[in-house]
């Protein structure tokens, strides 16, 4: 039983990490133009907003899809 719980937690962590890889891949292409000595604040804001808006779009589409069914 403890083993099962342990495995489930590890699986969730792996899914969380996989999701971040996807977001970072997508939002990097959207937001990062130049790669200097650090990310400028405009790029940082874009990256953070990109993640939140992506989730917004995903929720909007999922909820609307559920209504259409």
């Amino acid at each position: 039983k403890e083993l099962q719980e342990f495995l489930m937690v590890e699986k969730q962590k792996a899914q969380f990490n996989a999701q971040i890889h996807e977001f970072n891949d997508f939002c990097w292409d959207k937001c990062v133009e130049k790669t200097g000595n650090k990310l400028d604040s405009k790029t940082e804001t874009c990256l953070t907003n990109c993640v939140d808006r992506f989730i917004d779009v995903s929720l909007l589409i999922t909820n609307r899809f559920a209504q259409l069914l």
Partner: protein
Amino acid sequence: QVKQQIAVANAQELLTKMTEKCFKKCINKPGTSLDSSEQKCVAMCMDRYMDSWNLVSKAYSLRIQRERNNM
């Protein structure tokens, strides 16, 4: 149950693709919230993506039939 699993997998793939395609079409510069024009654009884009899915599905079915008849 197999049927259901496939139906769910199919819907999930559709939702994933629509989210990506419609984000690209509608969110030019991600802001602090989805404004109403972005929301409207996403809703329309979603409907068009499903229209496109239906057209593509029909074209593919017809093609499979034609290929079978030619055999």
